[in-house]
């Protein structure tokens, strides 16, 4: 009768190789996805126009729209008299 090998040393090596292959596979997939979808490019580029709107006009909007909401365009009013509806304590 043939004696079965009871040595299990190689099993761990094979599992390690399989894990490395799987790991490289996942990494290649993620890498390919991020390259093709321009993940990091979008990460920087997508909010850029809104950031530009805030920097140029102080409003979280695309820069062209933000110009129409620039604070300098607000109508400012002033009065030389006190509002009569206010109590004396509020004046």
């Amino acid at each position, binding site marked *: 009768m043939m004696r079965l090998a009871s040595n299990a*040393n190689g099993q761990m090596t094979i599992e*390690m190789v399989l*894990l490395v292959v799987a790991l490289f596979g996942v990494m290649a997939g993620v890498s390919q996805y991020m390259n093709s979808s321009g993940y*990091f490019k979008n990460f920087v580029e997508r909010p850029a126009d809104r950031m530009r709107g805030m*920097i*140029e006009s102080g409003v979280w909007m695309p820069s062209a729209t933000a110009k*129409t909401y620039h604070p*300098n365009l607000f109508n400012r009013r002033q009065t030389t008299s006190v509002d009569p509806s206010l109590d004396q304590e509020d004046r």
Partner: protein
Amino acid sequence: MKKPNLGQAGFITLDFVIAFVLVFTFTVLLFAITLTFSAVEIAQYMTFAAARSYYAANISEAEQLNQGQAKFAELQNANYIKPLFHGGWYSLTNFTIQNFNSEFPAQNDTKIFIGARVLFSADVLNFQVPFFGSTNSKETFSANISSYLTREPSSDECTQFNTQRVQKIKQVYSNGPIGDLGSGYYLITDNGC
């Protein structure tokens, strides 16, 4: 008896290398974005200081313009600011002081968008990420950083205005009950308005 091989340290190293690239990239990206906002604030202050120098009354409008440009150049070449905008990460170009009113919707006051402006560019946001692509977009992130403080009238303008005003008053009263004012009165102005 053969000693079993227990050395598995390399496996976690491989895992670490892959994760490290992603984590390091996000860290660098967030660092670059936050530093960009800080640089924007500094550039904003530079335009504000230039607009403030331009705003203050002076002999003439040309001198006010000189003051504004000199202030910006002084800040741009200051030891504590120069490395930030000359190191390749950020740049400031196209500095101008003028009336930008035509770029905005029509409004009653046509002089409220007078001030200083500079084009801010952030090249630091463009870099290559190993394995995962690049952050480079079609164009480098840039924005016009402005400060609109308008401008006080210069001494020349005030003198000119007052001279014209006296001439008009003389014309109005020349045929009036008190007669001709032409020879008996002299224009005296202070430092402007």
